[in-house]
């Protein structure tokens, strides 16, 4: 005989304002098996939980239904409360009467009716709940960081600091990411390379860190604590272990007309190359799209000049497999393509550049050795126009709906640096809003306006037209003085929106993590679990989760590391007990379940059974490995006989809910 307790939460007025909680408690008290039905102000509070604990003991409850907020919010809270009173935590069910009732309905009568039905469904389900015990599975003490930008480096360093082995997989030939391309950093204006490269070196030298550069993740299997990852080490045609990074090959390579991606294509590199002087690992890579030897089989200069014999034209992609307990995603961002913005003339006017291109133009290691010159004629620009929100906050298909967050600050930085170095240059910044929340950020922006006399103009640029004399006509609004302006500029800099790296989407599919419509990884909770993905064991670091500046990225990287360390510290983790199980008496052994199982959790064995006619028969039956099963339930539907069922979401439980709702 079931003895069920029902507890209806007011959630202050969140529920009680639209749902007559007393009526819900009253109605549910007549349901099958219910022995006590109460309402309370805040069920999740200490005293609310005590109410459950006392009732469990006093009424010897065999099941608990809490009508409250979403189970995604407090299911664990109430399960723990029940457990502490001696009730199996899986005998607790939640009726979601806040997110899925009181918050969406306005009419008290219909909301109350619905709350009662949701409560009845939960009671009907809990009547069929069975006590479940969670198993345990071991944790592999090694972490994988995907992406070797500042986020990945910081995460790896922190995890290594805690004494765990960690691998960085970076798709480019060197770690460093976008920060390596940046000239100076706001709001302190210190040089990015000066603060980044020591960290890169530290990562390379750390005994716990293994860097797989020029590599990609090609497959992920397993689950929290026990991922098996296949890493594709792309052929770089140079033996990493032999190359000393002397650079002789790059000097002698005859193929010198390869667009240099590190300098945003503003100058050229050779076919065999080291991306930049401080690259880590400092190893050459041969670009097979340009290398004359790999393309035509004629050249071989690099191989001749290499004194250590590191060049290997026959190298192929290698695949290595490694087990990890935790995975941190740090795939970062890229500026969006601007080909849809004809009005800014980016695609055909070389003097219209993106902000990242400007970083390279101003960088001492950039194409002009640090002197700001127009890309078209290498002359010094005297009037520079910055356009903010290019592609950000766009409601159309051209750009991104979100604010890219970092543009206001780096534009202020660029404007300030230019005015500092070249006081004869006039700088205009066209903005929609200037957004500078952050420590010392607004002060920084005000300095650009007040100290450096950067002309900030509220309004957008409508049209950029290159003129015959090499100047650029910028047609824009000045909304505050209600004028249309024409500025005769030498250069235009577009604060381009940023988007997640293209590799993120296929990676999310491999990791079975969620992404939003913009391809940013979705965090487990927007406020309370910002560095974890909803998939256990997968953590998020840096701009792959949303636009971020460097300080924020580093903070999140360390936070993700802390979460990963928390996981790696454990010897084993509790498994989800809501897994599939097969009723051997009904199993046909037909293998349908095995075919749909994404985890390979189902195996078969021949077992001897006593048949109803007293004979014995050997039958092939399925069995589920509960440590591997993740509880999706695909097998339960593939099974025609219904032998396969899912703990916590059994056929009879779901049908009981259906019945309660339809009655």
């Amino acid at each position, binding site marked *: 005989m079931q003895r069920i307790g029902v507890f209806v939460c007011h959630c202050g007025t969140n529920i009680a304002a639209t749902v007559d909680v007393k009526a819900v408690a009253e109605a549910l008290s007549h349901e099958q098996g219910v022995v006590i039905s109460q309402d309370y102000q805040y069920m999740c509070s200490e005293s609310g939980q005590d109410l459950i604990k006392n009732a469990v003991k006093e009424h010897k409850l065999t099941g608990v239904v809490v009508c409250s907020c*979403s*189970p*995604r919010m407090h299911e664990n809270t109430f399960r723990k409360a029940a457990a502490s009173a001696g009730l199996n935590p899986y005998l607790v069910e939640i009726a*979601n009467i*806040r*997110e*899925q*009732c009181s*918050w*969406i*309905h*306005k*009419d008290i009568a*219909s*909301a109350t*009716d*619905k709350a009662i*039905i*949701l409560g009845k*469904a939960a009671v009907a389900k809990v009547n069929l709940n069975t006590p479940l015990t969670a198993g345990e599975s071991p944790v592999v003490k090694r972490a994988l960081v995907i992406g070797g930008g500042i986020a990945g480096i910081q995460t790896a360093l922190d995890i290594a600091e805690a004494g765990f082995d960690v691998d960085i997989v970076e798709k480019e030939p060197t770690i460093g990411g976008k920060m390596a391309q940046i000239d100076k950093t706001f709001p302190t204006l210190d040089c990015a390379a000066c603060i980044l490269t020591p960290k890169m070196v530290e990562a390379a030298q750390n005994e716990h860190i293994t860097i797989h550069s020029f590599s990609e993740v090609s497959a992920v299997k397993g689950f929290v604590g026990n991922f098996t990852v296949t890493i594709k080490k792309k052929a770089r045609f140079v033996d990493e272990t032999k190359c000393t990074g002397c650079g002789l090959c790059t000097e002698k390579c005859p193929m010198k007309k390869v667009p240099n991606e590190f300098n945003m294509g503003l100058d050229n590199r050779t076919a065999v190359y080291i991306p930049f002087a401080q690259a880590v690992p400092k190893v050459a890579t041969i670009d097979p799209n340009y290398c004359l030897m790999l393309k035509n089989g004629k050249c071989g200069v690099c191989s001749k000049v290499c004194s250590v014999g590191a060049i290997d034209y026959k190298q192929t992609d290698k695949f290595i497999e490694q087990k990890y307990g935790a995975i941190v995603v740090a795939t970062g961002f890229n500026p969006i393509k601007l080909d849809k913005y004809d009005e800014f003339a980016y695609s055909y006017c070389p003097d219209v550049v993106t902000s990242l291109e400007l970083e390279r133009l101003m960088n001492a290691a950039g194409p002009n050795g640090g002197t700001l010159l127009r890309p078209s004629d290498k002359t010094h620009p005297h009037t520079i126009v910055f356009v903010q929100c290019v592609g950000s906050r766009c409601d159309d298909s051209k750009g991104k709906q979100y604010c890219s967050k970092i543009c206001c600050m780096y534009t202020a930085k660029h404007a300030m640096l230019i005015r500092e170095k070249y006081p004869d240059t006039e700088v205009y910044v066209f903005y929609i809003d200037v957004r500078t929340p952050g420590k010392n950020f607004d002060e920084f922006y005000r300095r650009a306006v007040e100290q450096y006399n950067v002309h900030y103009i509220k309004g957008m640029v409508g049209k950029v037209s290159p003129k015959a004399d090499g100047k650029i006509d910028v047609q824009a609004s000045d909304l505050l003085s209600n004028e249309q302006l024409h500025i005769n500029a030498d250069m235009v800099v577009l604060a381009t929106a940023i988007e997640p790296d293209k590799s993120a989407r296929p990676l*999310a*599919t491999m990791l*079975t993590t*969620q*992404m*939003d*419509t913009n391809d940013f990884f*979705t965090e487990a909770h927007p406020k309370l679990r910002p560095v974890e993905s*909803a*998939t256990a064991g997968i953590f998020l670091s840096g701009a792959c989760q949303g636009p971020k500046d460097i300080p924020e990225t580093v903070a999140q990287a360390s936070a993700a590391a802390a979460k990963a360390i928390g996981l790696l510290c454990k010897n084993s983790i509790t498994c989800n007990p*809501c897994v599939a199980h097969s009723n051997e008496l009904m199993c046909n052994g037909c293998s349908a379940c095995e075919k*749909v199982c*994404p985890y390979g959790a189902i195996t078969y064995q021949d077992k001897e059974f006593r048949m109803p006619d007293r004979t014995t028969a050997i039958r092939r039956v399925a069995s589920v490995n509960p440590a591997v099963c*993740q*509880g*999706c*339930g*695909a097998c*339960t*539907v*593939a099974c025609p006989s219904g032998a396969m069922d*899912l703990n916590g*979401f059994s*056929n009879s439980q*779901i*049908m009981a*809910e*259906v*019945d309660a*709702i*339809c*009655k």
Partner: protein
Amino acid sequence: MQVNENFEPVIVAFCCNWCSYAGADLSGTNRLNYPANVKIIRVPCSCRVNPMFILRAFQKGADGVIICGCHPGDCHYTSGNYFTRRRITLLYSMLDFLGIERNRTRLEWVSAAEGAKFADVMNQFTEDVRKLGKNRRLEDLRCRKQ
């Protein structure tokens, strides 16, 4: 067909725990309205939805059944919703073949971030079912409430 203005359809929504149930929560968090006719049943994955559940709902007097899952490719369990898509396509096709009104059944992909889409889908679906009126073709007369 006669449309009864006061007819309130019973709608059962199966939502996967990882995307659509969270999407439904989000539409609540954002206070987006959809009709109280919609009652949600939480399942771990849309692939947990057995056609028997859908038929059972109709048998017991549901007027519409909707299944919501993660977008294809986003399944928490990698492949669950791909199986759902095939199974449910075939089942809906069969119901259609038996002459059951098409708008009583639906499958939608709603992500955890699509609270607004969830509310839109539910508003639209409820309206469609309301137009169809009471489910008579699949109801089990013995299960009808008095």
